[in-house]
């Protein structure tokens, strides 16, 4: 399916929309899960694994629904294990390597703040299943936002080293934030039918929350108008995604006939 096509059906748009949501969460969950057993403190090992579980769990529900909408009798795992790099529609932001704990938390905060507003609005869409999922998952997203925001404050207003590290992380990652608000035909079509939310509704709220948090953390707020990376919703990714997928899909693809439950 191509989103570049001049026209798409509602069904195609819904499938694509769900995939974008699911891919973001699966890939970020994957990056978070890489911390398991390697966190800076035991409590954080638990918290990072918990967030990974939430994201992968949210993705699982979204894939299941996407497969149902697609109507080709595919299983949710087919969407996870048997699509290639260019078919993944997640943001570049979430596929970047986990970096140090500062980078992980900077990304986590920016994405959680975005998800917070997004899911708040998704609760209202006229798609009962998606709306229901959003309501259920929003509670967990609120926790992710609180948790990552607290770490931004601690690291920003902690020691000289932690301040430098998380400032560097925000500076580096900033260029990947613009894509969060990218919209195209898929969004427009669904917005007309009240099946999706307009991201512009909360862009200012997101900027305000990010700005006030960074300021409270004594950090400099990078320029929102700087050059922003683009292309991921069309399947144009960084080179990191291919490696991530190679690892994630290898076993499943090596034994395509095996049932692992």
């Amino acid at each position, binding site marked *: 399916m191509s989103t570049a096509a001049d026209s798409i059906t509602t069904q195609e748009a819904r499938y694509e929309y769900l995939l974008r949501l699911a891919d973001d969460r699966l890939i970020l969950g*994957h990056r978070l*899960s*890489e911390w*398991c*057993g*390697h*966190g*800076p*403190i*035991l*409590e*954080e*090992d*638990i918290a990072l*694994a*918990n967030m*990974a*579980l939430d994201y*992968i*769990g949210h*993705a*699982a529900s979204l*894939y299941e629904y996407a497969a149902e909408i697609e109507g080709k009798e595919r299983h*949710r*795992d087919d969407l*996870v*294990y048997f699509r290639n790099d260019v078919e993944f529609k997640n943001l570049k932001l979430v596929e970047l390597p986990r970096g*140090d*704990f*500062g980078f992980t938390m900077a990304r986590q905060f920016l994405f959680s703040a975005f998800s917070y507003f997004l899911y708040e609005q998704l609760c209202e869409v006229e798609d009962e299943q998606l709306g229901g999922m959003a309501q259920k998952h929003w509670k967990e997203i609120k926790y992710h936002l609180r948790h990552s925001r607290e770490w931004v*404050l*601690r*690291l920003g*207003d*902690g*020691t000289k*080293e*932690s301040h430098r*590290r998380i400032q560097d992380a925000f500076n580096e990652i900033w260029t990947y934030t613009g894509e969060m608000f990218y919209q195209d035909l898929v969004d427009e079509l669904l917005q007309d039918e009240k099946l999706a939310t307009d991201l512009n509704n909360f862009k200012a709220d997101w900027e305000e929350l990010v700005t006030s948090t960074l300021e409270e953390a004594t950090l400099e707020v990078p320029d929102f108008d700087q050059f922003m990376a683009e292309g991921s919703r069309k399947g144009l990714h960084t080179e990191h995604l291919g490696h991530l997928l190679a*690892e*994630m899909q*290898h*076993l*499943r693809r090596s*034994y395509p*006939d*095996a*049932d*692992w*439950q």
Partner: protein
Amino acid sequence: MEDSTKREAFQERIDKGETIEPKDFMPDRYRQQLIRMMSQHAHSEIVGMLPEGNWITRAPSLRRKLILLSKVQDEAGHGLYLYSATETLGASRQEVIDDLLNGRAKYSSIFNYPTLSWADVAVIGWLVDGAAIINQTMLARSSYGPYARAMVRICKEESFHKKQGYEMVAKMAEGTPEQQEMIQDAVNRWWWPTLMMFGPHDDDSPNSAELIKWGVKSKTNDELRQSFVDRHVQEAHTVGLEIPDPDLEYNEETGHWNFGEIDWDEFWKVVKGNGPMNRERLNARRKAHEEGEWVREAAEEYARKRKLRQEKVS
């Protein structure tokens, strides 16, 4: 004199089956033995996250990925819970973790073996958690209250871990030829190291008699090992897997399975730090600790600044 009276009274309480609580009198040696056992147990949970954690990003289905991630997270929780229980004896978490990182403290040797295929995740759940349950069910009746209570809670989660492991084992054993081969290979590699988890023979276990006298343990290493063998041989046969022990034979008279001798040279080699993964496991823990240092410092500094600000306001 007072000491020996107190010690006698302590032993009487144990013999009556009473539970010892943190503020009660306890002989120094009892305290030291428990600190050793409980901190080793906590370290085993933490180091034990690594071999299974190795497969989280490669799990072959979303369901399996979620179960594995949640299992490894449980282990972190058990570690936290056990470190807290150890603190009730006056040993701080930092102290005992330093002992682990410096190589002074031990953890279960089973985690010094590598997870080479996905089937290892299944077999660890089935055999390693199966062995842990047998040991921990006994410890749930231990004389030291905080340890016993920790075990009750942990056992509930462990039995789920074992169940999901055995479910995977059974599924693979009836799967494709490759899956069957993979699962049998994993059983072959993990069977003997799992039997070693129960420790040396009773004759070579200097701590056992004392721990039994104090009601910390109620069964010997060999007794526990036998109940593990009896249960798991049956489970292996149910799903058509072979146990890699030519001496394995059912004994009609005793109602138990006779089994071959453990390779004690290998056992001691791994205990002394020369197993296949000892260095890697400890290095991974050290690396996480060192790389996390700036994070812990920042959290402390932030808390200090915040407290200062609050004091100024009030």
